[in-house]
Structures are given as C-alpha cells and as structure tokens.
C-alpha cells in the first residue's frame, strides 16, 4: 500500500530524514518509535503533504500513486488520514458540520453521492458513543476549549467517520491519562481491518500495550535503524533509545 524508498527530507536547509525506507501493506499496523528529534513527526507530515518540507531524494508511493504529485486534500481524498499531535481549534466552525463537509468533500472527489444529513447524524452519534465522546462536543466548535483527551478522541472520531485506507497517528498517546489512552486505543482497534493500514508514531511503548503492532520500527537520526516485531518495543522500554542512536551514528 505504502512504499517509501530512500526518503530524504530537509527543513529550512537542515536534513531531517536521511534515506528512510518503509513498506506498509494493507491490514498491517506499524509502530514508528524513536527519540525526540529523530524525524517521526516529519515523516507523518511529509506523508500528509504539509508544506515547509523539502523532499530532496527518494520515492513515496501510495496505492500506485506518486504522493509527491498530490496536494494535501488530494491525499485525503485518496484515503490518507493524519491524526494530529496538536489538533488545531477552529472557532465558530461547528464540529459536526466540519466533519460532514469533510466527508462530503471526500465523497465528491471520489464521485460518490453526498451523505444524507440524517444518516450522517446517526452515524456520528453512534461513533461518538463508542469513543465515549460527550455528544455536546459535537455541537461545539472544532476542538475549541476541548481538553487534551477530548481533542484526541475527536481525532479518532474523525478517523472513524472518514474511514481512511492509511491512517497515521502522530503521538496520539501524548498527554493522555491511562483511561483516555484506553478509550482512544479501543477506538483505533475498532478500525483495524484487512483493507486498512495504520502507522502509529509514538515515543512510548505504552500505547503498544493497547494497540498491538505487527511491526515496530525504530527511527533514529533520520533513518530506520531497527525493525522487528512487538518484542522490539519491549526491548526499547527496557534499554531506552541510547544504544540504537549510538549504533546509527557509528
């Protein structure tokens, strides 16, 4: 589904990703772990097409498409979803209407009919209940005045409604207490399916106690320095990142 080869990315002249390779297939859950500053969020943003990142080398292929040729919203239409580390507030923009507009924009781009208002409402309420997201938040402005946990749950709600093919969760666990983490993880687990791939970008192992990855990758100094199964995450938990960074530097 996603194939990254030798990806090099610069930000303001500084090379952040230095030849990154990654293969993700449909139905898989990958965890990208690594110390702060290793380039995890850069990778997430580059996949979503955010401006300000200079791709200086390598290939980014997604479902046979060259991602670099697609605008941000075109990637969304093609099924890429990024759950943000810091979801922004949109004052005055109703949460439910925002979600409906987004869903309809994606459906239009795919040549599908727009969703009818009643069906949408029912669906969104059901999903919100699953995520233990207070229905009142649906009527409020997008993320405005939401707590950290509410913002993250709102991201997962959007993800559930937009039903992406490739979902990238950027530090979705950061700032969550253990109960919120469990709710978010349950929501994500509901989205696991043979047609869908998930990339979890995280600093800590604990998210992986709740969402079991198929593959774990360690990103250090702009490259994937180690890949393995779930046991790699546990090893990292025990030993920290230091030994891998040293290995990468060597």
């Amino acid at each position, binding site marked *: 589904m996603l194939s990254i080869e030798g990806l090099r990315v610069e930000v303001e002249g500084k090379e952040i990703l230095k030849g990154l390779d990654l293969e993700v297939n449909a139905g898989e859950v990958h965890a990208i772990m690594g110390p702060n500053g290793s380039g995890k969020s850069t990778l997430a943003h580059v996949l*979503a*097409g*955010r*401006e300000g990142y200079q791709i200086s080398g390598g290939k980014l292929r997604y479902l046979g498409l060259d991602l670099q040729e697609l*605008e*941000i*919203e075109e*990637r*969304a*239409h093609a099924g890429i*979803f*990024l759950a*943000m580390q*810091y*979801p*922004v507030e*949109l*004052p*005055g*923009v*109703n949460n439910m209407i*925002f*979600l409906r*507009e*987004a*869903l309809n*924009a*994606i459906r239009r*781009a795919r040549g599908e009919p727009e969703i009818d208002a009643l069906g949408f409402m029912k669906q969104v309420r059901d999903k919100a209940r699953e995520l233990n997201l207070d229905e009142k938040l649906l009527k409020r*402005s997008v993320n405005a005045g939401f707590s950290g946990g509410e913002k993250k749950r709102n991201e997962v709600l*959007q993800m559930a409604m*937009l039903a992406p093919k490739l979902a990238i969760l950027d530090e979705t666990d950061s700032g969550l207490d253990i109960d919120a983490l469990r709710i978010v993880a349950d929501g994500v687990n509901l989205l696991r399916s043979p047609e869908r791939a998930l990339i979890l970008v995280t600093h800590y192992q604990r998210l992986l106690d709740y969402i079991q990855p198929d593959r774990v990758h360690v990103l250090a100094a702009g490259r994937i320095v180690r890949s393995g199964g779930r046991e790699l995450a546990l090893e990292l938990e025990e030993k920290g990142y230091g030994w891998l960074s040293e290995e990468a530097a060597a």
Partner: protein
Amino acid sequence: MASPDAGVDRLIQAEYQQGFVTDIESDTLPPGLDEDVIRAISLRKQEPDWMLQKRLEAYRRWLLMSEPQWASLHHPPIDFQAISYFSSPKKGEGPKSLDEVDPELLATYEKLGIPLDEQKALAGVAVDAVFDSVSVATTFRQTLAEAGVIFCAMSEAVREYPELIQRYLGSVVPPQDNFFAALNGAVFSDGTFVYVPKGVRCPMELSTYFRINEANTGQFERTLIVAEEGSQVSYLEGCTAPMRDENQLHAAVVELVALDDATIKYSTVQNWYPGDSQGRGGIYNFVTKRGDCRGARSRISWTQVETGSAITWKYPSCILRGRDSVGEFYSVALTKGRQQADTGTKMIHIGENTRSTIVSKGISAMEGSNAYRGLVRIAGKAENARNHTQCDSLLIGDRCAAHTFPYIEVKNPTAQVEHEATTSKVSEDQLFYCRQRGLSQEDAVSMIINGFCKEVFKELPMEFAVEAQKLLAVSLEGAVG
C-alpha cells in the same frame, strides 16, 4: 503588521462581479456646490419652501465645518467642487407601476439579480430601488398601505407627508452633527421613508437596493424610519455599484426613531466597488447612521456586513434614551487589497436600565486596513446600564492591519461595561488541518471566516445571511497563497 514579506502574493484577486455601467441618459447638474445648486436640486424635486430652507441651513453649517481627520484612513483630499450633486435618469414624473419603468433600468436590476416582481412578494420582501438619485420603482405599497405602513421615496414623502418629515427628519442626525451629515442635509438626493403606525407589525421585510451609476456623482441618500409605539419593522439594505475609475463619494444619512415598545431591525450588506488592485477607483463611503430609542422598552438593532468600498467611515449608533431600551450592533467588515475601513458604533446610554450589545468582527487580508472604533457612554442618570462589547479581528497574511479603538465613558457607578477583544490569524495550521480532512483551500478559508462571523450572520434575516456568506466567499476567492 505591515511587514514587506511577500509570502502572500497570491492573495484575493476576485474581480468585482458587479462592474458594468448602464447606458441611460441622465439629467445631471454640472459639478460644484453653492446655494444655487441647492435651489436647483430643490426645484427639480418640486419641494416645498420649508425643505429648501432646511437644505440651505444645512449648507451654511457645512461651510463652517471641516472634514474630520481623526479616523484611521488615508486618502487624497476630496474636491467637493468637482462633484456633481444631482443626477436623475431622464423621466418626468415618477412611474406609477413597473410598466412605466425604463426597461433598461429593469434589465440592470436583473443583472444584479434583483427581481422586481411578484416573486419578491411571495418571498415577503418589498423593494424600493434607488437608482442613482431618484427612486424609480416602488413596489408592494398596496399591501403595506393596507397595514398603514408608509414605504416610499424620500422626495415623495416630503411632498405627501410634510408633517411627519418636518417632525422627524434631522431629529436624530441634525445637520450640525458632522461634516458629512451637514453635506447630506444640504444636497440629499433621495432615499427612503418608512413609517410604521402604532401597534403595527410590518407585514414584510422592507428592502432597498442602492446603485451608484453616474460618473462623478456624489450619492447622498437620506433614510428615515419611524416606528410608532408598539410597532415592529425589519429593513434590509443592500448595495452594489458598477466599475469606475474615479473615486465616488457617498455620504448617506440614516435616521431611526423607535417610540415606546417599538423595535427596528436594520440590516446592511454593502458591496460597493472597492477599487482595483492598485487602489484606483472605488467608493468613498462616509455614512452617518443613528437610531434613537426614544421610547421606553424600545429596541434598535444594527447588523452590517461590509465588504465593499475603498473607504468606509461608518458608525451606526444607538441613543438609548427610553428606560429599558436596548441597542445592538453586529458587524462584519472585510478589507482586502487597498481597502480601508474605520467602522464601529456608539452606544449612548441615557435612560435607566438600558442595555447594549456590540459584536464586531473585522477581517483584513492583503494590504487591507481595518479599524474598530466604538464609544460606550453611560450618562449620569443611566442607572443600571449594561454594555457588552466583543471585538474580534482576523488577519489573513502578514501585510494587513487591524486596529481597535474603544472609548468608554462612564458617569454612573451602577453601570456594568465589559469589553473583550481578540486578534487572530487564519493560521497555516488551520488550513493544513482542514485540507488534511479533504477540504479545498478555498472551502477551508471560507469555513474559517464564516465560523469567525457566525455570531453576526445569525442576526441577519435568513436570505440575507446566505447572500452575505456568498459575498464573503466571493470576496475571498484565492485568499491565501
């Protein structure tokens, strides 16, 4: 704010969509202003002598005044002798029905999407269209007449309802009020008069469309709305203007009088030609709008969406004289290109338990400059007066400017006055977020702007709210690079 950073070069370039000139022969006075010109205007309008005297008195006051300089606006000096003060489509008497209206005029309205037909009646809207300086069509007066509501051209009102006009005209905005009000008092061309009798709820929304069409012709509308005890009226004003190279001066005066328990709601969507991308052309809009809550428990509500004009100088105000009276001001002002707006309101609390609400939303893009200027005055006898002001500015790009000038004068210790102000930017983070969810950049900007303006839009009558949203979307096409 005005950093030379060129990151926003691809900003808002939507061409003015209403730019065309109608070819109709006009009866236009040569440029210049003196007492003879005023006599000529009065004569052409077949006015009684008292009206002429009022005009001359205003003119003499105007001569003693000078143009205000305090606003945060910059423009070359206006040569008041270079302006023609009267222009009228050539036609003797006013038309009695639509059949008598010049077909070309009607075609112009069609182009503007203003249907002067039965459909409007079904939609519950009567239209009194001001084309240049003379009212050419007044519709649905029959329905209104049955309810006892007067809705007619000001020049007609001067002839037909002299007692009412003598009693109320200039009673809220006297000529000595300010330079532009004095000028208007001297040369006002035409406008609208609305009178809602005691206890009557006006059966339809009243609507006037303005259109400036003559090169070099100042426009000096005069509007007077009187709501008698216990009556209610909602008035909509919408404007467009054809593309022009010269700056066109517009100095209207609007007066509202609300007696005991009366309610007046006045809504404006203003989309006059803002000038080209170099700032050439465009309307200079110096307007005095004021409502007098004369009676107890009366209520006056101003809602405005200002997207046009090169210069906007406008402070729709409320004088809260009657006890328990309520004044409201809801405003969205958008400036882009070289547009400048200095706009806001005045809430003058005189009576006991008077309340006022101010919600002002300023949006600046490209090199637009937007100033909110508002006065809240609580007089000594205004026991328990309350005001809440919310003043938000939104910046798009980094070459625009937003200013806030709140003036608060409180002379009564029981007053409660609150002022909240915020300034924010349409951030790259917000746009990225929206686009990542599948929205186009334009839809994202439009959604963020509409969200920002929501509190004001919800005050507009439904059809106007839709129009206003469309207008903002059109104005901001390609807004952020």
